[in-house]
């Protein structure tokens, strides 16, 4: 408005379009496009089908965890124990499979059928405790999930004495780790299916609606007859369930059960959600953006690798982008707020 005199009208129209684009879709898609173009220019190897498929596979685990993290964040909480959930799932499922495989060496699928549920349920158990602590006892999500992160990590280390669990059937790794079709690996397909499932859950079921309502205004939800405690509990349980699936896929990928596979996952998953516009105060966020958020971090990491950016620098760049995105999002919210008035 203040630049009216200085700027020629054509350029003004262009900035108007950019501003409107920014207001309607947010900063993330713009950042993603910029990153894709930038890395394509910097490296010939970046924008190839092989590399993109690779990026997708690398980010599929983060995507799945971020979907769970998002559900918890919708209810105005967060889950710091997703890393430990990955570890517990990985270690327990690997122990189960290795044990069965040792007993029945010629029946690998039996071992898988035993080990996978064990891992899933052990991971889920962490979420159940989180959910009980937050929903029933009313302890802050920060404390409960931080505590459970330590407990889970401890359990995973204790069970394995800190060494990788070997002896997983080859078929498990082959099917869920490196298997796949149409050029995409199994975890990418699983992530895609889960993203669609979470999308349906959040947009087309009562439970999903209640996640938003509980995070948007807990009291209002309670006064409307929503079972707020059950809803909160289920948020943590679903998050742990999704995270456990990611843990199983990671175990297949690495062909071993590892206690320290998820140490960076809590902050990464929260970052992927925040950059996707999921509010830390609860009540806002949607699935496509969270998927984009997770993929964006994968693109940045991969792009910097193939363009030869030093790994020390990478950490700083990622952090700076996150802060920039959060600031831009706040700015956007204010602009929108001003327009509706």
């Amino acid at each position, binding site marked *: 408005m203040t630049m009216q005199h200085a700027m020629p009208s054509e350029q003004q129209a262009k900035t108007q379009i950019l501003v409107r684009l920014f207001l309607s879709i947010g900063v993330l898609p713009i950042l993603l496009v910029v990153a894709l173009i930038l890395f394509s220019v910097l490296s010939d190897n970046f924008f190839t089908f092989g590399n993109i498929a690779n990026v997708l596979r690398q980010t599929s685990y983060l995507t799945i965890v971020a979907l769970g993290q998002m559900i918890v964040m919708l209810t105005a909480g967060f889950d710091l124990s997703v890393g430990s959930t990955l570890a517990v799932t990985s270690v327990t499922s690997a122990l189960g499979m290795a044990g069965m495989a040792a007993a029945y060496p010629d029946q690998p699928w039996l071992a898988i059928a035993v080990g996978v549920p064990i891992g899933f349920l052990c991971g889920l158990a962490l979420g159940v405790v989180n959910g009980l602590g937050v929903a029933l006892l009313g302890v802050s999500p920060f404390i409960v999930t931080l505590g459970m992160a330590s407990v889970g990590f401890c359990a995973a280390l204790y069970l394995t004495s800190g060494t990788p669990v070997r002896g997983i059937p080859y078929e498990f790794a082959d099917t869920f780790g490196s298997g796949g079709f149409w050029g995409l690996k199994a975890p990418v397909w699983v992530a895609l299916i889960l993203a669609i499932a979470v999308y*349906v859950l959040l947009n*087309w079921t009562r439970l999903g609606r209640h996640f938003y309502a509980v995070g948007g*205004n807990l*009291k*209002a939800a309670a006064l409307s*007859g929503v079972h707020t405690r059950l809803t909160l509990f289920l948020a943590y349980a679903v998050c742990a369930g999704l995270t456990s699936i990611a843990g199983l896929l990671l175990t297949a990928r690495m062909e071993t059960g590892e206690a320290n596979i998820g140490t960076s996952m809590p902050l990464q998953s929260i970052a992927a959600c925040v950059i996707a516009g999921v509010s830390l105060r609860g009540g806002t966020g949607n699935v496509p953006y969270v998927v984009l958020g997770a993929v964006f971090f994968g693109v940045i990491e991969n792009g910097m690798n193939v363009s030869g950016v030093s790994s020390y620098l990478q950490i700083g760049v990622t952090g700076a982008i996150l802060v920039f995105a959060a600031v831009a999002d706040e700015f956007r919210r204010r602009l929108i707020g001003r327009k509706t008035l």
Partner: protein
Amino acid sequence: MIAPSSDAIAQQPGAVPTSGAGTLLIETKGLSKHYPGVDALVDVDFDLRPGEVHALFGENGAGKSTLISILAGANTPTRGEIRFRGEPLTLADVGAARARGISAVFQEFSLVPQLTVAENLFLGDEPVRRGFLDRRNELQRARALLERLGFPLEADRRVQTLSRAEQQMVEIAKAFRGDLSVLILDEPTASLTERETESLFALIRQAKARGVGIIYITHRMVELRRIADRVTVLRDGRKVGLVDAQAADEATLIQMMSGRPISQVFPKVNYAPARTLLSIERLTTADNNVRDVSLEVRAGEIVGIAGLVGCGKSETARACYGLARVAKGRVMFDGRDVTGWKTRRMLDAGFSYLPPDRHKEGLVLARSAIENTSLPALHLPQFSGNIFLKRRQEKDTVSRLATQLKLHPLDLQREMGAFSGGNQQKVLIAKMLTRDVKLFVFDEPTVGVDVSTRVAIYRLIADLCEAGAGVLLISSDLPEVLHLCNRAYVMFRGAVQVELQGSQITEDRVLSHFFERAA
């Protein structure tokens, strides 16, 4: 469909219907609610007949909210019995109340801002088909409901983009969603325009005709006469009387409500208007909540600003105090142009503002009375040396103020959250008195305080005025403005509607400017 006897027969073939007209919808006996340190409700007998509007009248903190929250299932009584259509009733939660057709519209909105109007209307009772939300059906039913009620709202708008009045409509529509037998309305007209109020009253009359019983909380005498049948007056958690709404007059009701004659509630003030302290000239704020407002306050007078919630009365003072951005206009204070000054500078200049929400904006609840009181003046030489705080002087000053204001208990180290509402308010006022102040701006100074504190606050305001300070009293409590001020402005939608002087300040005249003029 609401007629109680036929309903009972239809739903429970075995049940014996109680004899027609005499059936009470709701009856409470000895209903009590005890919180640690407070008796919010003591032995209240209350009843509601089908097809009547039963008003609850009383000050903030008298127990009205506690009573309705218990009846709506949002709160459980410590003692006492509730009967619903003659049957004993225990309500586990709001859902249980709603299942019996008891719906409440609370003053504090129970809406989820991030959801749309339709989503809010059906929250907790979403239409589902084969396990999935039937969003089209939800939208259609929401539109039909809004149309039936005559509310001009778009069903797919997000609630956070709606105005306060529009949000109020969503709340009311929510209550009308299912089969209704008891409707509880907590000051429903507080943010509605006159036309919206009219359509609400029409809805209430329709509901009455269908046998719905309505519990109606209001502060406005005019509404009692217009819409209520019976009035129950509460004071300090107790029922003090049940009167016929048509027969009740203002003086009687105020006397019942406060427990003393009106002349003892409001002090007689000797105004001595002197030089102009605050002069606001054509002020418009950046957020447009205040538009082209001009007013002035002199030393030695009490000037009131009345109006609905969100009419800009609070925002006007806040803009002067550096809490809202000024877009146009000028603010003169004590002979200086102070437009756009920051809060700290305004305080130093002698402008003190009492915020309306003591929990959100007024007090640090986890800290002591002494720390709270000295906070605005902590950086001044009286409390601060070059390096260290002068804690002895701090204690002396605060202790003097606390004694003067009769803080109870007189324990300066006690943390603020442990004091009652009235005593928290006293500390909030003590904060203003730690410094040299020329103009006191009180924004809702008596919200949620008991009668004796209220009387003390009025006395203090009168004393400040008589001592030569200027007082600006912003209030939604109409009697306060009527009885304390020598001049008053009435605001509507961000603009000053009228300025009234002395004997012109009557309830009818003030209220006639509360709303939009008829088009």
